[in-house]
């Protein structure tokens, strides 16, 4: 128990540190006092509140959503390689976004929001189609069926993306930029747009934390333990997909976070989903806030896409934890 408390305290502490550093460090130096005293420096306060803070918050939300969805998918599908994108949600969201850029669509009343909204719609359509198709093939919805269906739809939608990229001219830079992921210049509206979906997805997964633990022993065992397997499975898949769809629609496809943060969490603090889910949530946010910080400061005043940084920073960290854990086991 003690160790668990420490895990939460340490994670939250590191997250708070990341947020504070993320808010204060950047291309433009902003003294921390500006946070609570906007009159100190009008211009700095404008940059802080309208450009930098929404960026940090969005990075945190996207990171936590992806990490938590990844943890749920890995647990449910009992596949260490599963990540939020396994079911093809990200490809669906990407198709929605790239179609917007490719055809230069701008829906009245939505304006700049056309892209995230269409992307969200793409994500949800993909979930519905993947689920229905898996159900059609296999009424019991076995994990293998779900994974295979997801991969097939992912590939198909991926080729639709490649087709649009191949045919694009002027929009190419924007499309590639979006696919590589970024939380730059989204502002508060994107945060408020994604937040309700993220909360909903978070709750769906949180309510199933115990069932996830039971499902680890196999569906049959879980149903003997009194879990309504089919219903719970649907809830978990939906929750994870909603989180993923919301994250991808506002920031593009940011890899690595959803795959690796849950693994790190398990290595450090065990595999009880009651803790893996919230801890992944916290640490996913931290990782992405740090990655965004690096992406906007490393070659300042230019920016790198955040998707380039995630694995760059994440992989060595993961390797280090992995190595330490193995050493412990063999010692």
């Amino acid at each position, binding site marked *: 128990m003690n160790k668990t408390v420490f895990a939460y305290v340490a994670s939250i502490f590191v997250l708070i540190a990341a947020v504070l550093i993320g808010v204060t460090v950047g291309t433009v130096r902003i003294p921390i006092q500006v946070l609570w005293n906007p009159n100190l420096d009008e211009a700095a306060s404008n940059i802080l509140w309208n450009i930098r803070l929404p960026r940090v918050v969005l990075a945190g939300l996207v990171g936590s959503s992806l990490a938590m969805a990844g943890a749920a998918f890995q647990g449910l599908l009992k596949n260490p390689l599963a990540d939020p994108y396994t079911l093809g949600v990200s490809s669906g969201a990407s198709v929605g976004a790239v179609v917007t850029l490719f055809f*230069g669509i701008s829906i009245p009343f939505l304006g700049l929001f056309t892209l995230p909204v269409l992307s969200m719609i793409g994500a949800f359509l993909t979930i519905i189609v993947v689920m229905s198709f898996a159900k059609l093939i296999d009424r019991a919805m076995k994990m293998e069926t779900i994974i295979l269906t997801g991969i097939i739809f992912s590939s198909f939608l991926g080729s639709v993306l490649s087709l649009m990229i191949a045919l694009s001219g002027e929009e190419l830079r924007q499309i*590639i930029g*979006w696919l590589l992921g970024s939380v730059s*210049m989204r502002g508060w509206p994107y945060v408020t747009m994604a937040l309700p979906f993220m909360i909903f997805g978070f709750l769906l997964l949180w309510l199933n934390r115990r069932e996830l633990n039971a499902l680890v022993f196999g569906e049959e065992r879980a149903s003997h333990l009194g879990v309504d397997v089919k219903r719970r499975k649907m809830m978990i898949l939906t929750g994870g997909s909603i989180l993923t769809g919301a994250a991808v629609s506002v920031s593009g496809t940011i890899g690595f976070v959803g795959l690796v943060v849950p693994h790190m969490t398990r290595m450090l603090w065990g595999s009880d989903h009651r803790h893996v889910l919230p801890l992944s949530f916290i640490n996913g946010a931290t990782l992405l806030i740090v990655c965004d910080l690096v992406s906007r400061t490393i070659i300042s005043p230019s920016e790198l896409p955040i998707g380039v940084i995630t694995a760059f920073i994440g992989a060595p960290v993961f390797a280090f934890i992995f190595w330490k854990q193995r050493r412990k086991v063999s010692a």
Partner: protein
Amino acid sequence: MKKIWQLWLATALVAILLTACGQEEATPAQQKDTEKTEAVESAYPVTLTDVTDNEITLKEAPKAIVSMIPSNTEILFGLDLGDKVVGVSDFDNFPEEAATKEKIGGQEFNVEKIISLNPDLVLAHESGLGMGEAGLQQLRDAGVNVYVVKTAMNFEEVYDTMITIGQATGAITEAEEMVQTMKDEVAAIQEKASTVEAKKSVFIEVSPAPEIYTAGNNTFMNEMIQLLNAENIAGDQEGWVKMDPEEIVNRNPDVIITTYGGYTPDATEQVLTRVGFGTVTAIKNKEVFDVDGDKTGRSGPRLTEGLEEMAKAIYPEVFSE
């Protein structure tokens, strides 16, 4: 993921290569009087060495030319050789007549199609070498004369390109006229710009939020801003860069110029209402303008038009007629 990476790299390369460059110069480019080389009627055979050190010999003026990049096409049409052009790239949209020509593809061009058009001259471009070198070799192997045009880095190099294309096509007089006209126009604009008292700072936006890219040093845009006696706030950056929006606000440009109005509706509107940019001088004074990206990015005869559009946007009090 790997695919995306390769694509991105390729795109980045293409973006860098497609960019023409303007060298930083302390003084405006000195007008050099080009020595008029007397155009000889019977200049053929012409032997030319291109940027890949490949030598071609033309026995007579080419009657069927394939142009593989819009800037070459614009030069050819500008030299009154439109009727000789038999094939153009997918991106060719100027002049209107160019759009009616056979299309040979874009970055990935169709070698068979080009050969089937039976050209005596193919005008390729250095920027396309990354993806197209093998295809060009196939063309050469098929006995087609391929001339790879050097990527122009500034106005001077555009003039050189024009003269070279003139030499290859037998339109040397027209090419010299074209260059002279452009030089005169640039000089006139520069003259006017030098009278400006309060120098303005400019931010060029080549793609809209959220992925704001700008033109830094070694781009035509940058050279134009310098010619116009203004300052590019991204002049310390190299080529096309994605700039941190905080820094854009911090550097506080007097004018913002967008170049994507052609395919993004309400380009200037989007900038004017951008959250967090309210403190920027250009937005406070509503000095946000859209100029044609083709005129400011293609190393062809319309560059001076682009320059004029930029001039009117930056210093309307001096340049508005």
